[in-house]
């Protein structure tokens, strides 16, 4: 196995694509930092916060669906597909390596490359964020992925976030290796990876919004129902009571209808939350203490996220290995 890894890394080290991707990663990191720096110049005073800080860039740059994140699984898939198109997989099989060992080496190499790209990008973002905005864990700043919210990013949150992000990338890379070995061709491979990663992320987001919208409608209807019932209790006029009864029946009908919509949407949203490896990263919660909001990640999200990602990684890894073992090499 170590020989397979060594040979893969040797090939990558000689490949200009990897070096270009690393340089692009650093370039995008510097650009993103400058972008937030400029945004901060206009917004910080109005919003009473510091948009750009080292910690905000640290947690913001881990996202697999924002800026450089999505380029990582694509890059890994390209390297894996090249193993097939250049015929190096064939040579390894002829040289006596089992298909399982070869698949495992592809996954480990893919993971190592992904972490190298990711950590270079995150480190550059954090470094430049800290240079321009400092790294003070007591200031209110942009928290989580961009657009999620603002608050004080706590050390505990950063640790949990980084760990969960690394597990999320494990799932994403396991999925990318699975798709690359399944397609063995870069054409269908890239759209499949992008559509899946972005599709699940945005669907989860969309259904999350739908759940809260339906929930608000339900709350409003429940309040209206209570008010109507109170008003009817005070009424003595039989005609008015009859009118109230009619209105109450109407609201109850709305509540019943909304409830069934809520149940459906909620089930889909819950399923998507389970399937989305980035769910924990995309949902930053805040607790309010005094005049400040603090970022938190509850243990259920953290451990649930790790467990879910481990399960997905294992499923894609073993599923991919079985598929790879069964199919002939062309």
């Amino acid at each position: 196995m170590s020989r397979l890894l060594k040979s893969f890394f040797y090939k990558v080290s000689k490949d200009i694509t990897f070096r270009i991707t690393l340089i692009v990663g650093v370039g995008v990191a510097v650009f993103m930092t400058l972008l937030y720096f400029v945004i901060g110049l206009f917004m910080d005073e109005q919003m009473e916060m510091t948009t750009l800080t080292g910690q905000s860039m640290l947690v913001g740059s881990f996202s697999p669906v924002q800026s450089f994140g999505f380029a990582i699984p694509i890059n890994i898939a390209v390297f894996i597909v090249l193993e097939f198109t250049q015929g190096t997989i064939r040579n390894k099989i002829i040289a006596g390596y089992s298909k399982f060992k070869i698949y495992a080496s592809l996954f480990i190499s893919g993971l190592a490359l992904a972490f190298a790209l990711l950590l270079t990008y995150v480190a550059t973002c954090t470094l430049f964020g800290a240079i321009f905005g400092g790294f003070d864990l007591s200031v209110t700043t942009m928290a989580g992925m961009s657009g999620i919210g603002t608050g004080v990013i706590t050390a505990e949150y950063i640790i949990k976030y980084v760990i969960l992000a690394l597990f999320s990338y494990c799932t994403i890379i396991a999925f990318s290796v699975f798709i690359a070995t399944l397609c063995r061709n870069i054409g269908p491979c890239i759209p499949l990876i992008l559509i899946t990663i972005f599709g699940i992320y945005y669907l989860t987001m969309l259904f999350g919004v739908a759940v809260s919208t339906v929930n608000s409608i339900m709350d409003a209807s429940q309040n209206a129902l209570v008010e109507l019932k109170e008003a009817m209790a005070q009424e003595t006029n039989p005609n008015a009571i009859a009118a109230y009864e009619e209105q109450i029946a109407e609201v109850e009908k709305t509540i019943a209808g909304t409830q069934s919509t809520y149940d459906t949407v909620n089930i889909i949203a819950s399923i998507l939350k389970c399937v989305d490896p980035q769910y924990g990263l995309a949902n930053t919660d805040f607790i309010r203490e005094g005049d400040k909001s603090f970022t938190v990640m509850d243990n259920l999200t953290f451990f649930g996220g790790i467990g879910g990602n481990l399960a997905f990684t294992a499923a894609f890894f073993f599923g991919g290995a079985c598929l790879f073992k069964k199919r002939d090499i062309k």
Partner: protein
Amino acid sequence: MNLITTNELCKTYSKKLVIDHVNMHIPEGSIYGFVGENGSGKTTIMRLLTGLAEPTSGTYELFGLKNNDPRIFEKRKNISAIVERISLIPNLTAKQNIRYYELYTGRTLTEEEKDELLKKVNLQDVGNKKVRNFSLGMRQRLGIALALVSNPKLMFLDEPMNGLDPEGIAELRDLLIELNQKDGITVLISSHILSELEKIATCYGFISHGKIIEEITAQELKDRCRKSLMVKVDDVEKAEKAIKELGAKDYKVSPTGEIRIYDNFKIKDVMAGLDAAGVNILAINSSEESVEEYYLNLIKEGK
């Protein structure tokens, strides 16, 4: 001892039987010439034996181990192959490609050994040229050099002479003979250039439509491709009778009206005999059957 033995080996693709109960025997230390028309199944058999494809049914033995024996992976380390296409990394130089092979095969060559290897395949002057800029022939040579990196005991070469110029073919031929005779490497080689194969093969396997139609040693083939007298006549039955009367024992009558006599007769005696029997001779000539003719006849008979 056979290095490879297959037992009723079958492979189907989309329900089509492309390898049909093949029984092959490749002796240790031989150069096994694998001959067959396009699509006959040569490459598929090589793919099965190198582990690139799994047999649908049947088994094979490699170095005395069955294909489903887990220890076979260890034995495969003694194999190298160029099947269908040469697997090279285009953005690396020849030496970097060798280094890449070294890394996963676990054999490390010194700079001198690498130079020696490149010299063996006449690529000593490529320097830092990237493989993507190599000609087809150069790639073919580098592929062979890479196949030698792991110091194999068994080599599979699928049409290795494709893309080589006459000089390159002669060099490859000499190299394979050297590897076989000096280093004892067993070679399974397929080629369409039968005249070249004839110069190196120590035994042959003829395949057609996924079936092995004959396995034969080079000596046996030589005996069968011996000198003969070919006569084309208007009445085959009469001619056959006349030839028998002349004392011919070893002859073959083809459905096209050709009679091939292997006994040592003079042309004028045969002509006189046939003339006396009232047979009109359309053509007569003395010939020696080549491997190609032998193969074509074999295929015809097989059909």
